[in-house]
């Protein structure tokens, strides 16, 4: 077959492709040369590349459209199944401090101090509730714990604030803090900005018309606050938290650090820094105040942050499991969502099975597969005879019947599903008829809806055209003479059908099965409306996590698993039946 001249390429002749192959096959040692002296291979490649580029340019609008509107959002959504930056971003200090924790007992004071600082910032930015929701996916109770903590966490350090202020009222003044913390020149820049703002305001007051006033509006923001290097060195913790305070004051509250007294937690950090002695020999602004305070802090009454968390806020903070969860989920990427999606969970001690009362996903995947297969087989059973009939009737009759098949296909999905509700419910048409015939008693009407039966019936009906149409188009091409020939050679009707006709219709069954199965595995609306609680699919659960529980990571993980499952089944199908045997007509 693979003859050298008419090999894989059936069309011989001077096409560029063939020429290259020819050259390869000939196995020449000297390169063939084109008219201008360049090797033929290269010059041909160049010509081919131009052709390919042109083809690419032609399809590029569609390609870009699909990439931007379809592939990118899906990839972004699927990326959420492993993304877990929220913990390390919301609790940066705590995550670092927890690295040394061995997982037993309650972490030490240092960890709680880090947590306090992180949570004050998170609370100001309203991030702590999101963090709580995130951790709640892993451990029930984290959401309420974070919310409650958010309400009280600003009290930490209050006692120290009072003592600093008592020692010297200057600590109460925003100006003291600014001069202690600000980078060189910020104070001057800020003063200039204030002057400019006042000038603009005066000009506005003098303006005659509202339009003029608006044109004169001063909307330049205050110069961004930066902490000085000296402060960072002498007061590492204070500088960090004060920097965040100034940033939030400027960007979130649209206020100025020169006007606002710092949070209590800043005084807590100051106490920690001064006690640690990093400020010894500090000679920047306010050096005198710092030196006096440093001498005084050893006499301060500093309540334990740890006991505040445990005793005042919530005793759950003494629960090692809480800390274990934070530690286990502190890395920016996690397998946690995928584990949850298969009823496992990531705990401090490794991977464990989910509690029995919360493990539902394997069950739902199995149910989805089982119901999709059931629907697929009912579609074959109902669709095959119809397609057979359609393809063997005279054209006029078969066209009429085909319209009957297509009519529901063109009707809105919601309408058809709602119609099934009316038909199937206990006081519905089907039950009424059954009671009227006397097949079931009035008190014992069949439950045909809000369960698996309802979903299977409604979805079989809805997906039936996807089975009938490919079957029909394949059966149309089967020549009736084959069956006639079989019969003339002595085959019974059944043998002629089973041995001759049916094998030729298999490609249609294959196409119908793939269509119906893949469509039903991701079906959402119909099971949601008629499935009750036992007839719902995994897709309903995905929708629930997207729109109600907001657990997008888990939804993405479930979606990824579903996608992989479909691809795996497709591969399996290709291996067993062969995708070439599928015909859509």
């Amino acid at each position, binding site marked *: 077959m693979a003859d050298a001249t008419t090999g894989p390429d059936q069309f011989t002749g001077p096409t560029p492709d063939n020429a290259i192959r020819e050259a390869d096959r000939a196995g020449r040692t000297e390169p063939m040369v084109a008219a201008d002296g360049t090797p033929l291979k290269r010059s041909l490649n160049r010509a081919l590349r131009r052709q390919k580029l042109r083809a690419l340019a032609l399809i590029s609008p569609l390609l870009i459209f699909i990439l931007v509107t379809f592939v990118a959002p899906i990839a972004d959504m699927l990326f959420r199944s492993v993304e877990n930056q929220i913990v390390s971003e919301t609790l940066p200090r705590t995550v670092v401090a927890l690295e040394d924790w061995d997982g037993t007992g309650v972490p030490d004071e240092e960890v709680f101090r880090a947590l306090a600082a992180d949570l004050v910032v998170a609370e100001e930015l*309203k991030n702590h*509730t999101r963090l709580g929701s995130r951790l709640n996916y892993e451990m029930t109770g984290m959401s309420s714990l974070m*919310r409650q903590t958010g309400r009280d966490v600003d009290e930490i350090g209050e006692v120290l604030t009072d003592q600093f202020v008592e020692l010297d009222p200057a600590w109460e003044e925003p100006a003291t803090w600014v001069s202690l913390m600000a980078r060189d020149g910020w104070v001057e820049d800020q003063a200039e900005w204030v002057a400019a703002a006042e000038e603009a305001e005066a000009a506005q007051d003098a303006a005659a018309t509202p339009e003029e006033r608006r044109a004169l509006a001063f909307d330049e923001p205050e110069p961004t606050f930066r902490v000085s290097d000296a402060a960072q060195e002498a007061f590492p913790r204070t500088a960090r938290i004060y920097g965040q305070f100034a940033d939030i004051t400027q960007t979130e509250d649209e206020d100025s650090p020169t006007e606002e007294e710092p949070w209590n937690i800043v005084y807590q950090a100051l106490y920690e820094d001064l006690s640690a002695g990093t400020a010894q020999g500090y000679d920047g602004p306010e050096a005198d105040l710092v030196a006096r305070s440093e001498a005084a802090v050893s006499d301060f009454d500093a309540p334990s942050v740890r006991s505040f968390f445990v005793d005042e806020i919530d005793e759950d903070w003494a629960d090692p499991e809480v800390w274990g969860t934070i530690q286990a989920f502190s890395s920016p990427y996690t397998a946690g969502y995928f584990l949850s999606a298969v009823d496992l969970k990531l705990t401090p001690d490794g991977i464990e099975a989910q509690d029995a*009362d919360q493990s539902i996903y394997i069950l739902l995947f199995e149910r989805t597969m089982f119901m999709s297969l059931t629907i697929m087989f009912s579609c074959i059973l109902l669709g095959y005879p119809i397609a057979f009939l359609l393809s063997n009737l005279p054209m006029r009759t078969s066209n009429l019947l085909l319209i009957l098949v297509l009519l529901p296909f063109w009707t809105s999905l919601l309408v058809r599903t709602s119609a099934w509700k009316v038909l199937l419910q206990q006081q519905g048409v089907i039950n009424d008829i059954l009671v009227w015939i006397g097949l079931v008693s009035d008190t014992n009407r069949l439950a045909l809806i809000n369960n698996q039966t309802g979903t299977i019936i409604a979805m079989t009906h809805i997906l039936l055209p996807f089975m009938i149409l490919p079957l029909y188009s394949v059966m149309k091409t089967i020549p009736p003479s084959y069956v006639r020939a079989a019969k003339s050679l002595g085959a019974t009707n059944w043998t002629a059908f089973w041995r001759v006709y049916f094998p030729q219709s298999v490609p249609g069954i294959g196409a119908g099965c793939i269509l119906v199965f893949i469509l039903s595995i991701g079906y959402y609306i119909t099971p949601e409306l008629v499935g009750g609680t036992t007839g719902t699919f995994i897709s309903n659960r995905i929708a629930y996590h*997207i729109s*109600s529980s907001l657990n997008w990571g888990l939804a993405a993980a479930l979606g990824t698993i579903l996608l992989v499952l479909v691809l795996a089944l497709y591969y399996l199908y290709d291996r067993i039946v062969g995708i070439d045997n599928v015909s859509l007509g």
Partner: protein
Amino acid sequence: MLGEVFDMKIKTMLLGSGAVMLIAASAVAQDGQTTESPVAGEPMADEMTIVSWGGAYQDSQLKAYVEPYLEMHPEVQVTWDESSAEAVAGMRAQSEANNVTWDLVDVTAADAMRLCDEGLAMEVDIDEIAAPAPDGTEASEDFGEDMLVSDCFIPQIAYSYTFGYRTDVAEWDGNTPSSICDVFDLETFPGRRSLERRPHNNMEWALICDGVAMDDVYDALETEEGRQQAFAKLDTIKDQTVWWTAGADTPQLLADGEVVFGSTYNGRLFSLIVEQDQPVEMMWDTQSYDLDGWVIPADLGEEELNRVKDFLWFATDTQRLADQAKYISYGPARASSAPLVGEHATLGIDMAPHMPTNPENATNAFVQNYEWWADYRDDLDAEFQAWLAQ
């Protein structure tokens, strides 16, 4: 007509003096007119997307204040989005995508708290958003602390979750249910029930009927044992229950005779019983109060925000909230609106006896703890959904 022109004149004449303005304002307000909002005259967007619940409730909003507002401001175009049930997810998605397309969102009190906590809704000063009562009472006082449950929440109505039951069930032998626990009594009251597909209220009702005192319900629900107890009670009717997600489900199921008992918002049952005259009765026992109101998405553009403020000033004033009660039996959130609640717009019946707050209906009412739900919603939802799926 003449009166209106005259009022307009008074208003323009007195502009500039705040104190006199107030008197003019209250005089005008009694006329059914409203005062000019504080943002009147500022540049405003002409399009507004309002998110609400659809159905009879959205109709009541449309008739009571959206249509009247559009008559006064014909340049404005209002787009409705019936996504309130998924408001939290929607607002989070829009905020993450940095593309907020909603201008005003109607949510329950618990959702408002969640949105406020997550920084997705704007914190408001109610006195700057809502007009004072006709007698000059500040809005904050007129709504009262009980209504202003969150800094982001602009209350509209008090409603309740109640049960309706069919009056023609032969198997009941003439018994009529009178207590919430009859819902759990399959022997005396056989037949299918419909309950909401979320833990709210169901958990509370189950505990109350399992002997937990109303005041201890939330303490019990905080514990694992309490939740197990509630689930065990719900297990007794689980296979006889249809779970609803939309407020219109239960009325439909009751009308079809699919269920004999069903919980839903009292206004939906009102429209089923009174407007559609179905063989269904209301059972007010242990009705569970809840609030509903507006939130404004955070980070709204200035012009959009001005439009929303201008609309809210009108839509939440005393007369407008009282008008809403003409169309649906929900209690207006303002104290000053209560005396103005009159008759049903088309049926001409007195609305007061159908309000959840009517003393006769409220003898054994349960007050949902929104704050508790804002804290524990995530926890309980996970367990409840798992319980349902098993």
